[in-house]
């Protein structure tokens, strides 16, 4: 057998799955003692050029509570044309179409190399993809010009039949009608008034009166499609028109007096965008792309008032409960995000400004819907321009690297339960026998909705071992997990991707070395980091850090080899050797550190953490790769090469989004020698010293000391 490293890599390449533990402890208690939970990173739509989709429906287990998909792990009786579900052991008849199967004539889904398989199914009408641009006009002339050009350029990148719409906002919100001849027409909304979806649809004239109003006039043919297309038109029809419209776009004309911020109605603009799509194309793949150049300053969702003398909230204000708009705004955007998720649409946020733009409050819009979040200094930077362009990049097979409205369902064999997921998803609240009562992340469900995803979107899924210590799973058994992802492909096809994996059970007492050897420290670091970030969202920073530290120490105690109270004797096996370093960088990263970061930046990094976190861990050694943070996909290979020389580069490193800014890089590069010890450091996030971070060496020393301490 190859090394675990190879095994891990191979599994990831085939299935897009990485487990923290590749041999599973066979009882609940043991699993808990492993410190790092049994969990996996799943990249549902991992790019698989070698995986041709099959053109038929998957075969499902007939047990209503199971409905697992036929997979290579199933026992098949070729003579009786029966198959046994490997999750519930239900024996199922093959459907008539499978009459001809035999050992030598197997359908793809039974072949071991197709542990991941994709079905193309015919469900409902196919609707073109929808792109709704929501554009801030309170920008500097230069910024607006750059943004306009980017948007105009993007029209050529869209699929020709995609529907596109334009909403501009500043003090007011304009929903542009795109099919007008002779006069350009837009519906205007006040930026200070929150409207219900119904009101928005009424005001946009999207709801038709039930009865024709007047008699004596020819009844007009029902024109439902026409209605929808007033604001959303196929690109090929109106690209000229829209190009002109974008070209004529002016800065928000309302005067901004000295000492004021422009009035920016981001909250209502988003609300209208959501309402528009909700009314016209529910459950259809659609991106709301918000381009904003500053914080929302009025109406629902406002983050800061228009007085420049009042600065936007800082972490300090938030700690002091002094951010007067934050809660209300966050609630506004959360409501919107949830509505958007319900409709299966996603929201991208492209925020380019030197100051904060309210990402903290708006983050859920991208987080919950699987949208992109890009933060930059200006729309007139290559950072934005290239990032934006890459959104429309095509994959290896010439398809857009985006998918919509995915429904991820996880099925487990009986020994496992699902504790939760962390990633750009929302719960669908589907309870079932395999759902654990203990939640880690978004739990209490076996299904999640991921409104926008691409081949890199990765979710962390946490499991729980069911069996009690006194009734462990018999040795040699295998646990199985099936991931079923139904989604709308960028080609507008409906597809289902099914991944089924299995891992061996092992008794942690007798076979700890097996389990240890099968530890995936990179995956584990990410999984722990996700948990940490998830907690950071709701808890105080130092608490999370302490929790992380404790976990790390416990892990070292569990798996380290040392003599008690002798730090110098401390050794970790190879499979754990890098893990403490990862943790060191994690705790210093902007994901968890708010010092020197604005709330927006924290939100930004945390958002990315869910996807593209890992490169951060290594970059203290590579300041020469500063461009790495500016360039995204293109230098991926370069970056990967470099990174791989340092760390085994995890598969899910895809730097699709903009990196940090130089100050962060520099502040991370070379932690100064410092007098502070570990504990003091963690609590001084507010101190005005530029950096009092410990160096890695100090950190490791402390770690060793604590790990070997008998007091711990």
């Amino acid at each position, binding site marked *: 057998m190859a090394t675990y490293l190879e095994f891990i890599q191979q599994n990831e390449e085939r299935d897009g799955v990485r487990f923290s533990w590749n041999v599973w402890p066979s009882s609940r208690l043991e699993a808990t003692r492993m410190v790092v939970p049994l969990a996996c990173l799943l990249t549902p739509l991992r790019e698989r050029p070698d995986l041709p989709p099959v053109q038929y429906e998957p075969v499902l287990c007939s047990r209503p509570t199971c409905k697992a998909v036929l997979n290579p792990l199933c026992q098949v009786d070729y003579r009786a044309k029966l198959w046994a579900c490997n999750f519930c052991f239900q024996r199922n008849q093959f459907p008539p179409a499978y009459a001809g199967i035999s050992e030598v004539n197997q359908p793809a889904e039974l072949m071991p190399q197709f542990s991941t398989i994709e079905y193309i199914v015919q469900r409902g009408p196919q609707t073109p993809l929808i792109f709704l641009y929501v554009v801030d006009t309170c920008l500097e002339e230069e910024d607006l010009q750059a943004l306009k050009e980017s948007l105009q350029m993007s029209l050529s990148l869209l699929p020709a039949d995609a529907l596109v719409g334009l909403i501009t906002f500043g003090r007011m919100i304009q929903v542009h009608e795109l099919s007008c001849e002779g006069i350009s027409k837009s519906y205007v909304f006040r930026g200070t008034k929150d409207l219900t979806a119904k009101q928005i649809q009424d005001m946009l004239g999207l709801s038709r009166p039930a009865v024709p109003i007047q008699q004596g006039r020819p009844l007009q043919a029902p024109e439902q499609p026409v209605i929808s297309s007033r604001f959303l038109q196929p690109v090929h029809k109106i690209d000229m028109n829209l190009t002109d419209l974008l070209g004529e776009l002016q800065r928000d004309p*309302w*005067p901004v007096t000295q000492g004021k911020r422009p009035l920016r109605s981001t909250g209502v603009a988003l609300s209208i965008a959501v309402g528009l799509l909700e009314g016209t194309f529910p459950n259809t793949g659609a991106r709301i792309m918000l381009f904003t150049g500053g914080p929302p300053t009025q109406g629902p969702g406002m983050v800061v008032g228009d007085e420049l003398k009042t600065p936007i909230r800082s972490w300090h204000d938030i700690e002091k409960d002094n951010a007067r708009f934050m809660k209300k705004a966050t609630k506004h955007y959360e409501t919107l995000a949830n509505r958007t998720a319900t409709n299966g649409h996603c929201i991208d946020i492209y925020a380019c400004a030197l100051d904060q733009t309210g990402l903290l409050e708006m983050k859920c819009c991208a987080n919950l819907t699987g949208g992109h979040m890009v933060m930059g200094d200006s729309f007139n930077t290559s950072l934005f321009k290239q990032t934006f362009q890459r959104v429309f990049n095509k994959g290896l097979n010439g398809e857009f690297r985006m998918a919509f409205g995915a429904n991820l369902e996880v099925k487990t064999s009986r020994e496992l339960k699902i504790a939760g997921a962390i990633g750009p998803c929302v719960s669908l609240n589907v309870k079932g026998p395999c759902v654990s009562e203990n939640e880690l992340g978004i739990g209490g469900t076996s299904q999640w909705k991921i409104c926008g995803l691409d081949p890199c979107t990765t979710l962390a899924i946490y499991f729980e071992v069911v069996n009690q210590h006194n009734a462990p799973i018999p040795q040699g058994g295998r646990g199985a997990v099936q991931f079923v992802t139904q989604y709308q492909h960028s080609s507008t096809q409906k597809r289902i991707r099914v991944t089924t994996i299995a891992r061996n059970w092992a008794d942690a007492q007798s076979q700890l070395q097996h389990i240890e050897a099968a530890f995936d420290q990179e995956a584990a670091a990410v999984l722990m980091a996700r948990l940490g970030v998830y907690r950071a969202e709701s808890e105080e920073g130092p608490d999370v850090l302490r929790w992380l530290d404790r976990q790390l120490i416990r892990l070292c105690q569990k798996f380290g080899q040392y003599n008690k109270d002798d730090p110098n004797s401390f050794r970790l096996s190879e499979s754990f050797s890098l893990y403490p370093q990862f943790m060191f960088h994690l705790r210093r990263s902007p994901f968890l550190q708010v010092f020197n970061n604005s709330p927006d930046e924290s939100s930004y990094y945390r958002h990315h953490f869910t996807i593209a976190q890992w490169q951060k861990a290594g970059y203290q050694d590579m300041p020469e790769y500063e461009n790495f943070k500016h360039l995204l996909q293109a230098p991926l290979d370069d970056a990967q090469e470099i990174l791989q020389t340092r760390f085994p580069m995890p598969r899910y490193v895809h730097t699709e989004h903009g990196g940090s800014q130089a100050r962060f890089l520099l502040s991370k590069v070379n932690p100064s020698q410092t007098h502070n010890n570990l504990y003091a450091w963690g609590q001084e996030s507010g101190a005005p010293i530029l950096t009092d971070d410990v160096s890695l060496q100090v950190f490791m020393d402390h770690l060793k000391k604590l790990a070997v301490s008998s007091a711990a």
Partner: protein
Amino acid sequence: MSQQGYVTAPPYSQSQPRMGGFSAGFGPPNSSLHYGHYGDPNSSHAAPQPGMSKPTVPLGSSAPLGPLPPGTHQFSQNNFQSGASAAGQQPHRFQSPPPPNNTGPSYPPSSLHSQPASPHTASTSCTTQLANQLNSMQINSYGPSAIQSSHTSSGHPASFQGPQPLPLTQHQMALPPGPQIPPPANNFSGLCAQSSLPNMARQDGIPGSGLPNPNLQQLPGQTPGPGYHPQQGNYGPQMAGSQLSYPGAFPGGPAQLSGPPQKRLDPDSIPSPIQVIENDKSSRGGQIYATNTRGQVPPLVTTDCLIQDQGHASPRYIRCTTYCFPSTSDMAKQARIPLAAVIQPFATVPQNETPLYVVNHGEAGPIRCNRCKAYMCPFMQFIEGGRRYQCGFCNCINDVPPFFFQHLDHIGRRVDHYERPELSLGSYEYVATLDYCRNNKPPNPPAYIFMIDVSYRNINSGLVKLICDELKTLLDKLPREEQEESSAIRVGFVTYNKVLHFFNVKSNLAQPQMMVVSDVGEVFVPLLDGFLVNFQESRSVVNNLLDQIPEMFADTNESETIFAPVIQAGMEALKAAECAGKLFIFHSSLPTAEAPGKLRNRDDKKLLNTDKEKTLFQPQVNSYESLARDCVANGCCVNLFLFPNQYVDIASLGLVTMHTGGTLYKYNNFQLNSDSPQFLTDLRRDIEKKTGFDAIMRVRTSTGFRATDFFGAIYMNNTTDVEMAAVDCDKAVTVEFKHDDKLNEDSGALIQCAVLYTSISGQRRLRIHNIGLNCSTQLADVYKTCETDALINFFAKSAFKAILSQPLKAVREILVSQTAHMLACYRKNCASPSAVSQLILPDAMKVLPVYVNCLLKSSVLTGRPEIPTDERAYHRQLVMSMGVADTQLFFYPQLLPIHNLDLKSDAVPAAVRCSEERLSEGGAFILANGLSMFLWLGVSTPPELIQGLFNVPSFAHISTEATLLPDLANTYSKKIKSIVEHIQNQKPYTMKLMIVKQREQPEMLFRQFLVEDKSIHGGASYVDFLCCVHKEICQLLN
């Protein structure tokens, strides 16, 4: 109480405890009972005379009888004394015994006899009783009782059906000599005894005899019947005649009207408005009227003359009800003559009169009295060698600012007296400084916003296209200052149905941009830059837009509209642009769409003549009031062009227009072909009008009296500042004054009206009008200088304002009672002693009764279901802002004979009195009242006249569809057209010409304007009303 008689306004106010009850309310208590009868039979009759009427009187059929005072009225001595000159000149003796006059063929003769017949042989008592009888009949005529009485006379309607001249002959035939009288006489005695008409009627066995149909015919030549006093005979019949008119309100009316010429009180013998007008024309017309003397009475509004400002404001700007104020408030209360000024601060002056001088003191600004803030004017007295001046208004001594110092001449007048308009003229303007500007910033030029209802109806009728096409040319005619090349006024465009569409027409756009605002609940302006533009600069974009609008909505099926949000939007737009301006709203329907100011159809005829009738004139929802306030606060004037097909609730829709100094135009059932010229002329005129924006007016007075009430298209936030979002040349504010103290005869009563406004070019200015009136301790002086036309203007406005809070009945009663009081006071204090029964009218007021009667007959004060509520609300609103000339014409239309024109002369023919009797079958007449114009053609109009006018061979060929006379190349046609043009000239509203042929259906409409006749809606004829007033006066004198 006496104060109520002094001026009409206070009585209307609810706070007057006695106003509510009508019997107690009007006039001095002793007389009030009498007036109480007007319109309220039931309550009235118990009060006056216990023994008179019986409870047995069936309600409704009987008009309550007036009190029966002992025979004090000597009708035989009845004189209509028209001032000193006219006094005693026309004693009208009506000798004929009143023969019963059967007005309808089917009418039972007996009934005719019943009423007039008087049992009394004693002349005095007879007369009084007759008089009373008459009064009671009158009563019938006014209130609901008229209606009620109708049902009793079942025979009536049929008999009166159809307009035919027949009755006339019948009347004449029915002039029976005395013999017929006795039976009635008997009845009459019964009547007297019972004091109840209906009873009497029953005695006669005539159903429904409450109707006084019995027309007693008075032929002057007839010998009085036995036992009849001639006068009484005269009156009796005459009143009976009036009674006939009331049934006339029912279908039979017109017939009645068409048969007036009983020879009763000779109409020519009672004061003629036409005569008064013509007399004034001939004595003062064409001359120069110099305003150099305090308290001089100007020529009538109907008289053309050249006015020279020599220290007092031209009567074009200010007219007063009297030019000599009584010295004391006691006198004023006694006379009850309203002391009021009708101020038309922006009145148009003819080309040949001097426009206002503009005084510019630079940064120093206007010179004002330190105490009362009055502006420098000819009433300031310079003293101490010119170093100081004494304010004519508050007597404060002020220092003369150094830059303004000038020496005095030998008569104490500044040497530069004639060089400075503010020292020598009654009217002039000041350039205002920043202190007079909003936020101390110079104002921006005003803006006009055109807001077009593009709902289905307006698109379908072609109206939208018409407006858009017209605007393309009209926008070149925006008003500008004389010296400027082009107008500074910016324009903006909005269309709407149940949502609003704003348009960006910025000059650099390739095509206009439309911005839809659907949030009508909280409307806002979606754009700033590009909404209001200079037409010259944005011409191509604007024209592009105006071309597109009709097409854009060509296939609309939106029939619901909003209204209040439209105004709101316009107002917000002006506010955002920081300028004042006018909205031109073209609207057609009741705004029923879900939005603020949404209205429902609340027109309810059942409310007529109830205490709730007033609600019909009040806005339906409160939001319009606050909208009006906001508009005024932001200098947003709302001009409303309405094109209703049905009830649109003008009381609500027009409210903002009313309070913002806007103008309301209404085109019922707008038809593109026939109504376009009228509408377009109105629109053009309105756009071109010289207007002051964002105006605030203050009226200051010299000590002893002050302005207490204001009427007009204005808004009052407090008791002194008259706010007007805009004020144009046609808008007049009527200001009422009251005494604070005794007035000094030497210094007189001085009035200064200052209007601060923004000019069309965006300059902040003050327009000052000064006028000095005399004061006198002699009532005769007061009466001598009264101006009836101004009085009517005041009465109309105060009454029309009062109907918002008072029942119609009360308002009418007050009008009658005040008229009687004013005349009675004159009679008592100024006229030479004569018998009480003589009607003596002051010369300056001799046509007051006819005008008051016209006012009473106006649709606003007539609660009849046939008159659409909107029409009443519309007239009410128009009158509220009218000047004296406009009210004069509106209440007493001009009736011009055009069949016997002197084609060689340029002159407009002399008008004739507005009465059926003045028409002739062979004649053609033009009638105009400022809103409507008729061309009435008698059946025998000469064919050559018809040919000349219409280019058709005969009467039958004339189409009454046309609303314009054809342009024909003959002198006759040209002459008529020039007359029509002359009539139309300077009138605020374009009159649509209606062609009416004698004895065709539309004639009904025309007849309503013959205001001296009985009205089909129940109004009394002039003669009847005069008698009624006379009787009231007699009551008062006793």
